[in-house]
């Protein structure tokens, strides 16, 4: 088997702010192979975001080792971590986190502006447009975030996460602010990306959403308590059809006297 993209070994995270110490992650070991599509589930406060921030090189574990694409992340300084985030990782947040009053295109260009190697304006534009095409929003490239729906904003955020061709796409509750239909839409984009070979790890509360993934982890009190492959996983395109059919049926029922 090829070397894993992510190898966590006995990771601990202890927050020492204030009087009480919070032991948010208590020794998680985990391997993620290229091409996986993982949903992390668990109740609020169980340590999912802490784990994601560690995976995302936004935060360093208190203890334990983390190899990302063979690189020992624990030994890197602040700016080296920033380069890892820029080059190897893509982020999608619950709150979209797009720059306001900035066009979709410029939002997607942003990670390239922070790339260690300088990228020409023409190449930036071309790559950003390509990313927007992947999420189906090329026609909206000059729209501002407040001119886009929540689902569209999240797709712009996904395009931004993709633009530097990351090894690993991380999404912390990407559908948390979206309704069912748009959630399925976003999961469709993820499935398409995963089919193209991109490794994805996401956090979700909803079992339905987790069912679109290939592997589900359940976290409780800072530990992975279940780790299983999804059988019979949902396919976004089919779910969308079902959803539309249900909608039509509902309309007919209401319309009928």
């Amino acid at each position: 088997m090829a070397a894993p993209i992510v190898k966590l070994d006995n990771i601990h995270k202890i927050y020492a702010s204030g009087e009480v110490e919070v032991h948010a992650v208590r020794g998680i070991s985990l391997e993620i192979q290229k091409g996986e599509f993982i949903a992390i589930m668990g109740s609020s406060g169980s340590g999912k975001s802490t784990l994601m921030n560690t995976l995302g090189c936004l935060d360093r574990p208190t203890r334990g080792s983390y190899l990302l694409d063979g690189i020992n992340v624990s030994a890197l300084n602040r700016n080296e971590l920033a380069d890892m985030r820029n080059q190897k990782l893509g982020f999608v947040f619950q709150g979209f986190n797009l720059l306001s009053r900035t066009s979709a295109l410029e939002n997607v260009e942003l990670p390239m502006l922070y790339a260690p190697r300088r990228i020409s304006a023409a190449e930036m534009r071309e790559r950003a447009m390509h990313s927007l095409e992947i999420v189906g929003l090329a026609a909206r490239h000059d729209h501002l975030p407040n001119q886009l729906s929540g689902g569209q904003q999240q797709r712009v955020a996904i395009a931004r996460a993709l633009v530097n061709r990351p090894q690993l796409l991380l999404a912390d509750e990407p559908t948390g602010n979206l309704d069912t239909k748009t959630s399925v839409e976003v999961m469709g984009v993820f499935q398409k990306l995963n089919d193209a070979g991109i490794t994805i790890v996401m956090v979700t509360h909803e079992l339905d959403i987790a069912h679109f993934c290939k592997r589900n982890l359940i976290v409780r009190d800072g530990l992975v308590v279940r780790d299983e492959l999804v059988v019979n996983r949902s396919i976004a395109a089919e779910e969308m059809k079902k959803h539309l059919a249900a909608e039509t049926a509902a309309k007919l029922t209401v319309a009928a006297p």
Partner: protein
Amino acid sequence: MRLVATTIIALRALRRNKMRSVLTALGMIIGVGAVIAMVSIGNGAKVQVEASIASLGQNIISVFPGTLTTGGARGGWGSASTLTPEDALAIQAEIAGVVAVSPEVRDRQQVLSNGLNWNTSINGVSPDFLSIRDWGLAEGVIFTDLEVRSTAKVAVIGQTVADQLFPGSSPVGQTLRIRNIPFKIIGLLKPKGFNYFGSDQDDTVLIPYTSAMRRVARRTTLSSILIQSTTQNQMPRIQQEITDLLQQRRQGREPDFTVRNQMELAEAATATSRTMTGLLGAIAGVSLIVGGIGIMNIMLVSVTERTREIGIRLAIGAHDHDIRLQFLIEAMVLSLMGGALGILIGVGASQIVSQLNGWPVQVSSASIIVAFVFSGAVGIGFGFYPAHKAAKLDPIEALRFE
């Protein structure tokens, strides 16, 4: 350092919030505009003072009656009038390096001609007066030493007097009455304009000082003595020798005269305008600093307001120095733009002031360069703290910021 990319980022951030950018730069615009306008007006005044001092003539020493060392009941200049024509003659005869001497006897009189009259200043002088004051004749001649000795009734008049008494005709050859005594006009002075005290130098009638003493002012003493030396570096020596000579002629009495050179008079006049320029500049400089603090203030607010934006940038790979540089460039672009606009407004304002008030205004390129460089420095100086604050943010906390 990703200078090009960070510049793009900073410019995009400024464009994103045009209103905030303009308001931030406003302090700078006003500050720099004020500096340019104030310094231009001050410079204009200084240049005018210098020009009118130069128009007084070169290398001139003046002797005034009275002393400046006022103490007790002693008066100032002109209070004890004991300066005599003999003093002037002695200076001319005994001191080396003196090229010209002219006594001055000043009086104000109503002068009449052709049924017109005009109140003007009568100045009794010697023929040397014109070369000392570097003043030429438009027409006619100046009186001779012989005419001085014979207390001749001849006069050379200024342009203003000519305009008042002989409108539309040449005054030379005509007659003018001072205290009802007819004086023959033998010359017309070239126009000289206003001096730095604002008085019209052409509003004058020159007559021999002897005639002025005996016939017009009816006094035996002089208002002052003007002395011109050959070169400027002789001036201190000549000034000292004049003092010694006059003191010696007074045989042990307390000094009742003051010797001043033109440099000292000029100094006093330019010092005033320099103080003015300095004061105006200082006020304007304060407004520049206030402008800088305004930029810092808004940048600090904007760091807080933009915490989430900074978090996003950090999360997708910005280094701390990228953030610092971005905020510095933003501050610098704002203050330089403010500076450039301020320069335009300052130049415009000083032009308007000069049009409206007729003040001479001199926009110096030095003040423009200084203002521009200074506004850049203000941008860096006052931008640094907010930039540093932004760069230190923790990505996770910044992202969580509402």
